[in-house]
């Protein structure tokens, strides 16, 4: 945990900058990260990193510059020297046709409601024991791989706009285990997420694997012919699709630049099925908290899609300045509201002859953002379901469709929600998650290709 000396040092550098007339923001980011990677039933990497970064932004009229310093800083003077260099960089920059805006922190914030000391200092041996337990319980003849990232993120931000600050500390973890049959080559996966040490449970993964294993063990793969299908998308697939669909629809910069699939739409237009509602909701316990927007406002719950209608555009401070709009107090915490369907998707499809269940979509990309066309392929535990019974695993199948078709042809949505961890570990630790229904049944989904293998 950062000490008072560090806070004093950062505040002191801010004051020196302000005295010189420099408009600056200073963001301290400290991570304590651990990741255990599993491959071939072994720990293939056991790694820990403790890193401190200082991000500095300086605005000079219509010019700006930013700099990130990774490393320890010993004094206010040392930090101020860096601010002076960034200030010089901003001064030598080029004027823009709009005025960049300095973050103005609305009020002091001290937040650590999602911090767990036990997770921050989790003994790697705990992870090793959980994986070992899964291997033994499900069967050691299978090939297992996976990863378990855990750690803490601590940030402290100030700007020269006022004396307010925000201090935020949280813990997070993301667990994954993949089971692969060594000869038949199919793969099953289990994901878990949370911010407390006890959130990840071996038995959860064991139960998931044991529930689907007989289908995979006893049936050959089914090759899906290209065509339109009823598809149940699992939570990982819904989370990724919803995130891509909503960001390419509702990000203010994307909309203003006419880049997204809602470029010709206006607020209030019906763009998706009436059962689809998505909020930017920092209050949900299923996402990782974010106390301030990038403009410094305390975050609030904002509607983005309301009963299928285009309900909101999100503006960061500079996009707002460029396009003459007000910045929005958004958190970037997407929450898709549940429906009224049963918790178990098999109950929902009892009366349907043939449905594909696709829990996750691998390597999704957007060939045409103007039309909202995406493509990606099925992976992990995907099955063919007939009249509510799992019939067979399916080979790797490609979906190439449009966001407004997928979220426009919704037939039913689960009444149960779950958290999908969307964090990556590129660069700094930056936990993020979305809350989505556990499944969504969609009509007329385009399957455009299928491999001869899993």
């Amino acid at each position: 945990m950062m000490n008072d000396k560090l806070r004093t040092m950062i505040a002191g550098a801010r004051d020196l900058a302000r005295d010189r007339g420099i408009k600056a923001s200073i963001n301290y980011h400290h991570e304590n990260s651990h990741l255990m990677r599993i491959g071939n039933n072994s720990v293939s990497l056991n790694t820990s990193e403790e890193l401190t970064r200082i991000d500095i932004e300086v605005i000079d009229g219509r010019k700006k510059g930013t700099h990130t310093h990774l490393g320890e800083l010993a004094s206010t003077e040392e930090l101020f020297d860096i601010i002076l260099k960034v200030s010089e960089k901003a001064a030598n920059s080029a004027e823009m046709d709009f005025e960049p805006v300095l973050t103005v922190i609305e009020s002091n914030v001290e937040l650590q409601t999602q911090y767990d000391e036990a997770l921050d200092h989790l003994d790697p041996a705990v992870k090793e024991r959980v994986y070992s337990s899964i291997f033994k319980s499900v069967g050691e003849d299978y090939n297992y791989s996976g990863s378990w990232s855990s750690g803490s993120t601590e940030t402290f931000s100030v700007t020269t706009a006022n004396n307010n600050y925000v201090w935020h500390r949280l813990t997070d973890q993301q667990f994954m285990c993949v089971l692969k049959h060594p000869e038949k080559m199919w793969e099953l996966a289990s994901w878990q997420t949370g911010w407390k040490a006890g959130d990840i449970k071996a038995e959860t993964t064991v139960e998931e694997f044991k529930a689907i294993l007989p289908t995979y063990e006893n049936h050959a793969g089914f090759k899906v012919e290209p065509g339109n299908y009823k598809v149940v998308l699992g939570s990982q697939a819904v989370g990724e699709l919803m995130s891509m669909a909503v960001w390419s629809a509702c990000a203010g910069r994307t909309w203003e630049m006419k880049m997204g699939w809602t470029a010709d739409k206006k607020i209030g237009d019906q763009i998706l099925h009436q059962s689809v509602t998505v909020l930017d909701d920092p209050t949900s316990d299923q996402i990782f908290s974010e106390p301030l927007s990038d403009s410094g406002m305390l975050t609030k719950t904002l509607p983005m899609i309301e009963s299928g209608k285009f309900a909101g555009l999100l503006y960061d401070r500079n996009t707002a300045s460029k396009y003459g709009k007000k910045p929005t107090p958004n958190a970037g915490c997407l929450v898709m509201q549940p429906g009224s369907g049963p918790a178990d998707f098999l109950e929902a499809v009892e009366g349907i002859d043939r449905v594909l269940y696709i829990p996750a979509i691998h390597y999704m990309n957007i060939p045409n953002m103007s039309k909202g066309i995406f493509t990606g392929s099925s992976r992990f535990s995907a099955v063919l379901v007939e009249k509510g019974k799992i019939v067979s695993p399916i080979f790797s199948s490609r979906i190439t469709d449009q966001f407004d078709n997928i979220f426009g042809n919704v037939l039913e949505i689960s009444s149960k929600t779950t958290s999908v961890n969307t964090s990556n570990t590129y660069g700094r630790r930056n936990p993020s998650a979305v809350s989505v229904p556990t499944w969504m049944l969609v009509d007329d989904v385009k399957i455009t290709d299928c491999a001869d293998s899993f």
Partner: protein
Amino acid sequence: MSIFSELKEAVTRNIDRMTGSGAQYTDARWYQDDSSEMLVLLDGNLEGNDTSVESGLGVRVLYGGAWGFAATSRTTDVDSCFDRAMANAVSASKLVKVRLDMGSKLGHTGSYTSPHQVDPIDVSLSEKVDFLRRVDESLTEDWILRRMLRVQFQRMIIHFWSSEGTYTMKKLINTFAHMTALALDTDHQMQRRSKTLVCETDGTRGWEMLTNPALWSGHAERIKKELKEVLAAPELEYGTRSVILLPGQGHLQVHETIGHPLELDRILGYELSYAGGSFVNLDSFGKLKYGSDKLNVSAYGSIVNSPGTFGFDAEGTPERDYLLIDKGVLVNCLTSRAMISEANQRAGREVFTESGGASRSTAFYRAPIDRMTNVNILPGTDGTLEDIIKTTEDGIIVDNPTSWSIGSNREHFHFGCEIAWEVKNGEITRVLRNPSYQGHTVEFYNNLSAVGDKSTWVVEQVENCGKGEPNQVMELGHGVPVIKFDNVISGERK
């Protein structure tokens, strides 16, 4: 005592300490300087003016057949960094089925500096901005809705020590650049044409690379002309036809469907939970007909100027020029020392004789993994692009990706491209928009029907290849000629 001398003393002392504590192997990378700069000019506005400086130590210990890794940005923290790496290795060794082994190598010393005339990090911001503004002006037209220029410069000074007595020092310089022009077509869809800075194979990697008009900025007029043609073009219709890939597209095809499936850690299953696996297995080498006889693929390729050229890999192994695919047959892959040791152990025979020098890490705080270096399709004997067009009855020529999506074992793929030129009976007939194509990797490469000669060969740069957990971004290159594939499904099914 200089910082280098202090670090060297502390690192070598700790390496000896780890060996004394039972480590099979220990290495350490000190990034003395890892500086980068990114400038983004959007519609003439310098919206991105970002720099970063990183410095620190990464330590890797092999104990009981398992890796432990730790990193610190505190140069006063060397002893405890080694201790944490050892503790992680000891902890990992409790759950190991196949015990890793680095084999044994004699220590060596060496150094490498990327060829460059002017270190781009040292060029003044005003000179950079002036240059970008001139390029931006050459892209500006009333009908162009968005103009985006992005340049990135890197300078890394990396010292490496191992318990075998190896010491290497690298100074790596990279220069990347992209320009993109966007405009709305007749259906209000945003279309784009772009150009990425490419390498002169015997050129240099400094500021001078960016300012050579032939490599980047001189293409502004061409991409404007082509974008205008796309705006009024009909959409590519779904069907099966020949597809000719220009290097701007072909390099990504190679990257995704030859480079990634041939990373040995991926073949052995160490990427399953993130990037995926590979349809290639240890029995494939020497047997799998990956492509037609026209397909010859090399690693590294002795390309002097490329981000995939770095002298020594993250284990101190010198870069090595060798074939991955020989006349269509898979013969080798991208390897590091521990992975070839495990592969040979698993296969019960010597599948691989020596490391391919492909162990790389993106930063001091990431452990090395198997990565691409330069993965290249070697020039063929089918002449120029014009010669290949003349032999094409029904096809399209495509350039530059808009999207890429690959199956988890790299067995199938879908690419979207910026532009297509229709070819009928040996002639280009018209431009088409929204082109895409898809295929199954082995079938696709076995339908390789023409490979352009040296005049069509271009070394393209990739600065954002993602892999590994914790995630790592890596820079590399692909030398690729014009390549033609027959019987390819292209366009989108209605």
